[in-house]
């Protein structure tokens, strides 16, 4: 029984990581007010090129490098349409996702001559890490140790990005541009450059998320392997209004319920019903958030008025 729970919690981290990473990237675009729904496609692109690089050089570093380059390329395409040609951002996102799905499948068939999935011993996966000192603590070690290193990096990044967004020059300009781009412009900030940086970061992070899928958790590429995770990260970003630490928390909760859903099948709940659980949880989270926000807003306004009075 213990085993089952440990495995469940351990799995929450694995389920959470790709969502966390791409949401952390997406939060830059969220703050820059770029309506970016292309995380799904960029993740898929990253997953593919990660496998390609790792396969060609039999080396995970090259895999990661390929993935990040492909993420950059994808964000260049997105920026080309959305920023330069002023195409609707939502539509650009839909187009990117279609290009990603069709394009990776197409390349899969042309480069590896397979359809569906590509598996090969030549694909080298990302190394796993152990947190020093943790091996001595039995249960924690089982849960936290021996994940692909991206898992740890992603968690650290959540804190780092929170700091970047709220305490650095880039973060200040990012938030300013997102909230009111004319104001940014009036202060000599080029809003397009800020938006471009945010799209670039989103591309890189989503590609890294894809690499976690194809070189971290499993070691293979399969068509459409992002399978809706980009949409979930979009939902989480909107849900927590971009807060990186909120994203971390929600990703873990979502990851937990995703793996817990399988366990519910043990008590004879049909799989279709258990599969709904994470989405219902998201709605419930949104509900709790919205109800609280209303309250907080009211209190805050009163607070301010009181201060004014004194």
């Amino acid at each position, binding site marked *: 029984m213990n085993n089952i729970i440990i495995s469940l919690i351990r799995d929450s981290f694995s389920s959470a990581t790709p969502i966390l990473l791409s949401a952390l990237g997406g939060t830059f675009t969220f703050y820059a007010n770029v309506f970016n729904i292309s995380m799904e496609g960029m993740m898929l692109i990253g997953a593919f090129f990660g496998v390609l690089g790792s396969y060609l050089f039999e080396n995970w570093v090259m895999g990661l490098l390929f993935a990040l380059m492909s993420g950059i390329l994808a964000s260049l395409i997105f920026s080309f349409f959305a920023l330069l040609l002023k195409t*609707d951002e939502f539509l*650009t996102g839909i187009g990117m996702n*279609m290009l990603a799905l069709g394009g990776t499948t197409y390349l899969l068939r042309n480069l590896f001559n397979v359809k569906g999935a590509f598996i090969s011993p030549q694909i080298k996966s990302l190394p796993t890490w152990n947190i020093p000192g943790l091996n001595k603590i039995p249960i924690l070690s089982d849960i936290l140790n021996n994940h692909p290193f991206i898992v740890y990096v992603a968690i650290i990044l959540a804190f780092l990005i929170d700091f970047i967004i709220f305490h650095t020059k880039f973060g200040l300009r990012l938030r300013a541009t997102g909230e009111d781009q004319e104001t940014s412009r009036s202060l000599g900030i080029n809003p397009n450059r800020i938006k471009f940086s945010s799209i670039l970061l989103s591309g890189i992070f989503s590609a890294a998320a894809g690499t976690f899928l194809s070189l971290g958790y499993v070691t293979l590429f399969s068509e459409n392997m992002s399978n809706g995770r980009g949409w979930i990260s979009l939902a989480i970003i909107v*849900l927590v209004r971009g807060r990186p630490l909120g994203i971390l928390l929600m990703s873990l909760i979502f990851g937990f319920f995703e793996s817990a859903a399988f366990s519910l099948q043990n008590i004879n709940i049909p799989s*279709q019903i258990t599969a709904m659980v994470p989405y219902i949880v998201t709605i419930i989270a949104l509900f709790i958030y919205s109800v609280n926000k209303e309250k907080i807003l009211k209190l805050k306004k009163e607070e301010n008025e009181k201060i004014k009075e004194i």
Partner: protein
Amino acid sequence: MKSLNKILTGIIGIVFSLLVGALLIKIQGNSPIIAYKALYDYGLGSWFSITSTLNNSTPLILTGIAAAIAFSSNVNNLGQPGQLIIGALSAALLGYYLPFPGWIGITTIIILSGIIGGFYASIAGVFKKLYKMDEMLTTLMLNFIADYLTIYLATYPFLDKKSYVPATKMIKKEFFLPSFKNLNSSFFIAILIALISYFIVKYLKKGYEWRMMGYNPDFSRIGGCDNEQNLMWVMFYTGFLSGLAGALLILGGTQHRFIKGIGANYGWDGIMLSIVGANGIFETSFFSLFFGFLKAGGVGMEFEVSIPSEFIMVLQATIVLLVVSTRSLVSFYGDKMKAYFKTRKVVKAHE
């Protein structure tokens, strides 16, 4: 005039994107001429092709208009996919269990399925109204939930035991919408609904209020429109349209029952088309026809020229992106050019 303009710039975009597409086809090692001939033959070349195009566009017209009305009212309803399959499942079950005869039954099924789709959309509306929950997020989540819910129902309680995939029993034969030489009558229903929708948005006070809410919700509220109520109506009506699209798939399609995957991408394509059509009802319908053509013609390119289906997907994405970007470019740089020439004229007059 304005919508003609949108379509004309759209056509420039289509031509341009087909040229780029030709280049892609060439690079992939096929002859663009043969490929485009197949596209034409299967999408427009014969009566059968034309009717395939029209049949393909039927659900797209409805989901496209649903998205267009929602977006132009500032309501972010991304729930068309979910509302569509809920409508489809309802139609399949009604079509099997409903004891009414012929046309009465058909009408009942269509309207009821639409209403059920509308209610499904209204869930997000109620959440928004009561708790200010972001409707984009809730509709997105409700899509996933609708997906699994319908499959559950088609796998367990309403499974057709003879089927090999999750599917309900086939509806009664008398509820099949008739085809005229391969053109299914559901197409005419979609056109009728498009006209009604145009009428609602244009001539109904409610429709006017929806549009104003889309332009500036503060303005419409202060102007005396009940935004909260209008939000509910928009949610309901657009859900109704999507549910209707689902019902027509069941009554007018080829399956005549709910089957896993029947919603395909109609919901998402509709959302995309509303953007391509700049939220206009006529424009969106026009591009729905074009997309139906691409789909019908895609079969030809795949079959005749052996262009793989994933490549066709890439081609479609390229076309959509280029159509819209060409249009925004034409208007943006067109205006700049006008300003440039005007300046020259004014400067000259002063010299």
